[in-house]
């Protein structure tokens, strides 16, 4: 006989997994990638335990029929892939900052859509500060309230701070606090942080010179991708730039952008027909 050790959460049943997948997709458009399905148990165990529930099936039972929206939010949060790093894709942020500075030399407006815990907009803020360039607006949004709260605090563990951040930049822009590293207020203050859902909410107001939407569209259903790209297109000024993740493309997803001839790796908004 095998006894389940007390305190251990049994694996979720297929029905529960399906319910979780549709909860996540209906809220965020994100689909659970088959190669990440194994993470569901790990991701939700702490939440089940925190609520005194013995299994993930019970946890999902508690939010069925919209009965507990706050708990459903926390479940969605825990299921989202929020992997990120500073200066992700070596050299990409610096190159983008240069491109943006050249099309909007005065005071560029930038939107980071799906900013996770803030490493991407902070990297941009660093890149602009080091260029000595002004920034009019840097608006960073994410569907996850927990991620936005963390981003706003600007606090990173030793593991997080080392991912992609050169040591001299770490010393210049962060302060050590115990084992954590905290972004200088000067840097965090440049960024407006906001919880916002790309598949439901309106884009932040005004026209942007550039939008970053990296590693967000990847797990969206194709029609959802087109919708989000339309939203982004509507928020860019003519000739504005879009940056996607290294493995992502607009090709076949949207007719509103073309790969930029001037700026490698970036897309340009086509003039409206």
């Amino acid at each position, binding site marked *: 006989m095998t006894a389940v050790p007390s305190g251990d959460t049994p694996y979720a049943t297929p029905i529960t997994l399906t319910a979780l997948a549709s909860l996540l997709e209906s809220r965020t458009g994100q689909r659970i990638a088959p190669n990440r399905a194994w993470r569901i148990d790990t991701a939700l165990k702490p939440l089940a335990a925190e609520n005194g529930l013995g299994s993930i099936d019970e946890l999902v039972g508690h939010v069925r029929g919209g009965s507990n929206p706050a708990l459903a939010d926390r479940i969605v949060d825990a299921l989202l892939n929020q992997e990120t*790093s500073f200066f992700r894709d070596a050299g990409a942020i610096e190159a983008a900052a240069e491109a943006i500075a050249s099309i909007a030399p005065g005071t560029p407006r930038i939107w980071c859509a799906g900013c996770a815990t803030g490493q991407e907009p902070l990297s941009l803020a660093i890149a602009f500060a080091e260029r000595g360039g002004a920034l009019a607006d840097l608006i960073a949004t994410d569907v996850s309230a927990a991620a936005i709260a963390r981003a706003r605090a600007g606090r990173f563990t030793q593991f997080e701070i080392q*991912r992609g951040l050169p040591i001299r930049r*770490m010393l210049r822009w962060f302060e050590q606090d115990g084992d954590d590293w905290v972004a200088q207020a000067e840097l965090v203050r440049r960024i407006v942080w906001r919880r916002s859902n790309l598949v439901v909410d309106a884009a932040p107001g005004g026209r942007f010179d550039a939008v970053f939407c990296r590693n967000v569209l990847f797990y969206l259903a194709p029609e959802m991708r087109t919708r989000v790209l339309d939203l982004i297109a509507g928020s860019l000024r003519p000739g504005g730039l879009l940056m996607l993740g290294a493995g992502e493309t607009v090709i076949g997803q949207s007719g509103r952008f073309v790969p930029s001839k001037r700026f490698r790796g970036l897309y340009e908004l086509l003039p409206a027909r």
Partner: protein
Amino acid sequence: MKSCLVVDDSKVIRKVARHILEGLDFTVSEAADGREALDACLASTPDVILLDWNMPVMSGMDFLRALRETPLGARPKVVFCTTENGVAHIRAAIEAGADEYVMKPFDRETLQSKLQIVGAA
């Protein structure tokens, strides 16, 4: 293929680092202290050195200062890799000529990203 010299008095750390580095296509050699590392560098200069701080015989700092004085000593990129995680230590390492700095414990992504930063991966 790039070469990396792993300098650490812990056999376990050397083994872990070797595993990660070989996965990133590096040719790996090892040294257990600064003295051994200097000898290794004089015999053949690696592209990158992953350098522990606290070691018997010769510390990472003493090694780094000595290395930078040797004829080819400016060439290898030096990435400190140590449990010393205070600002004062990090500044001292940079002043002594370190190119990058990894605070232990580290994982594959951290090491890879630091090697990319120094232009080695």
